């Protein structure tokens, strides 16, 4: 099971070999998927959730917003996914500074958003399927929850 702990000005995540492979593969898949956004965004509901419209009920404004913001947003999300993949490839421990934690929380969220779409989790009433992909979805959520709790305690120390 993943361990997450504070060590000075770092958060250290320790993964098992299986977790490293699963997370690395998922992050690489996500980066690859985002790489197709230029052509596929409007055809793939997962890309639509990762790269949402900036306006509802105003197609013209949404189009303009997408034109200036979507390339950068896509590039940032690809970089985030690649950063996670590189970190789990490098060894059992991922050592994150404060900004690194934010990158990881964003990346884990993008993974969960994508996986949710693939698993059909689109409304409050949709259950997580009892499959290995469903277990991965839970695991990503659990890891995210621990990471948020850890960084919230860290931030609270800074405010005291």
């Amino acid at each position: 099971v993943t361990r997450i702990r504070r060590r000075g000005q770092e958060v250290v995540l320790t993964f098992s070999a299986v977790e490293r492979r699963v997370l690395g593969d998922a992050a690489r898949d996500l980066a690859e998927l985002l790489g197709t956004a230029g052509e596929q965004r409007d055809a793939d509901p997962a890309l639509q959730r990762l790269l949402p419209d900036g306006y509802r009920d105003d197609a013209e404004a949404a189009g303009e917003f997408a034109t200036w913001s979507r390339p950068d947003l896509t590039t940032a999300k690809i970089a985030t996914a690649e950063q996670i993949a590189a970190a789990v490839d490098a060894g059992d421990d991922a050592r994150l500074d404060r900004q690194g934690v934010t990158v990881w929380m964003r990346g884990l969220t993008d993974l969960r958003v994508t996986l949710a779409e693939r698993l059909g989790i689109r409304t409050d009433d949709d259950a997580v399927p009892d499959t290995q992909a469903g277990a991965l979805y839970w695991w990503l959520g659990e890891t995210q929850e621990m990471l948020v709790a850890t960084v919230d305690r860290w931030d609270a120390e800074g405010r005291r």
Partner: protein
Amino acid sequence: MVGVAQLVERWLVVPEVAGSSPVIHPMIPMDRTLSALPVEVLPDEDVETSLRPEVDVAWTTVVWNDPVNLMSYVVHVFRSYFGHPDAVARRLMLQVHNDGRAVVASGPREEMERHVEAMHEYGLQATVERAGA
């Protein structure tokens, strides 16, 4: 180009390591996700307009409910990005849950577009909206 079916297939397969079963445990209960909170009756306060007293408040940043994001994460984003105190961040998160959406900022259009782009970077569903729409 990556096919959707290919991605699903890859994601559906959790690789096995010889001699050990996958150490992935479904431990996080559903009721910690944003949209699975119990519905609470909130005081009818006009949180959004009291937060940003700019003169030009013709536009707003709206965050929408979704079944994926953890409530702790949404509170974290509202606190760390907008600088809201914890109680305000939590109240806004609850508004998103209870009403399906919440206005989290008001002001000039360009500023709201930057906020929405930032929310998208965090993985939240957000849009720009004309105030009072």
